[in-house]
């Protein structure tokens, strides 16, 4: 964030900060709803992640491109319109190209529009920066999100179905509980604790990741 106003912005750093330091789910604990809803399989998790990357990048770029024309007092409705426009694009394309997955996660794709993580990026980054840094910021936040979804769904599908991406890999009887809503909450909670533990053990943090949560 310090680099915001300087001439030279390290794109790599902007991207990385979204993936690890400001990871939406495990560190900031925002936009949690789909983290549990669509992570019963790696495939749906990753598809959702792709949709989020798309919306995040496109809305960041659009906001950044027209930022000089937006009057500060009406910026919120404008951001909302831009984001919901891109969500509609993602929603319709998903319905056209990924029919099977869409049946399962259609509602959650539409609800990307209410993601705090996308809205905050438009508000605190894209509306103040040029197009290229905003693009990378969108990629970073989106990929960070996708990474968390993929991690949660990896464990849930592996333990719950004994499969990955729909291919069976473990012969043993799976733990059905991981596919139930309960499993989603448990997996997310334990992974979050794990990230906190890493933070405390190796980086001397206080493990407050997500403690403020909203």
């Amino acid at each position, binding site marked *: 964030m310090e680099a915001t106003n300087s001439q030279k912005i390290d794109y790599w750093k902007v991207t990385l900060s979204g993936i690890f330091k400001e990871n939406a789910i495990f560190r900031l*604990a*925002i*936009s*949690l*709803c*789909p*983290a*549990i*809803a669509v992570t019963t399989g790696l495939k749906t998790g990753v598809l959702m992640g792709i949709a989020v990357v798309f919306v995040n990048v496109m809305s960041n770029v659009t906001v950044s491109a027209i930022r000089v024309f937006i009057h500060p007092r009406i910026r919120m*409705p404008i951001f*909302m*319109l831009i984001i*919901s*426009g891109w*969500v*509609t694009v993602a*929603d*319709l394309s998903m319905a056209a190209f990924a029919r099977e997955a869409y049946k399962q996660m*259609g*509602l959650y794709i*539409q*609800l990307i*529009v*209410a*993601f*705090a993580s996308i*809205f905050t990026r438009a508000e605190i980054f894209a509306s103040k920066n040029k197009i290229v840094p905003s693009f990378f910021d969108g990629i970073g936040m989106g990929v960070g999100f996708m990474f968390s979804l993929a991690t949660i769904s990896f464990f849930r599908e592996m333990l719950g179905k004994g499969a990955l991406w729909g291919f069976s890999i473990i012969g043993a009887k799976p733990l059905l*509980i991981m596919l*139930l*809503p*309960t*499993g*989603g*909450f*448990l997996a*997310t*909670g*334990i992974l*979050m*604790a*794990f990230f*906190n*533990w890493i933070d*405390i053990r190796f980086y001397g943090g206080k*493990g*407050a*990741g*997500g*403690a*403020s*949560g*909203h």
Partner: protein
Amino acid sequence: MEKELTKLFEIFIASSLINNFVFTRFLGLCIFFGVTKKVETAVGMSITFTAVMMISAALSWVIFNFVMVPLDLTFLKIVIFIGVIAAFVQSSDTIMRKVSPGLYYKLGVYLALISTNCIILAVPLINAGEHYSFLEGITLGLGSGLGFALALVIMASIREKLEIADVPVPFRGLPIAFVTTGLIALAFTGFAGIITS
């Protein structure tokens, strides 16, 4: 008539218990984990939410069926529903502040959090997707609102106790809240299968 009432009752039970927004559909989690630290806040919050959900279900039903369907604009439902809800919440915020400040300080403060919340937006979207009638739509709003209220109050009561519990350090804060929610969700799985149609 009787059949319709049965259908309404089914929708009510299904949306409040079986498909509870928090424990089965995972909506409104941000609010759920954010405000459930005190029972008092949770109660105020859930009253506001239930009211807004019912009214926005009704408003968006009227707009969807009398404006969007005849004009063939249903593909714009996300944009339009967001606009309708935001406009409604904003105006009720202003009206409440002028007309009854006392009520505003009790319940209105939560309105600001609501306008772009996924749980509010989900009700019109589900209504539109399922082609519900007007009454069914409102019932869905009421049921989901009360289900959300139930979830908030249960969680807030547990978290008040958790504050004084000795939780392992990495689990403090949100992680333990997630694990607790998981266990409540397990209990709610028991409601599945109440309705056999």
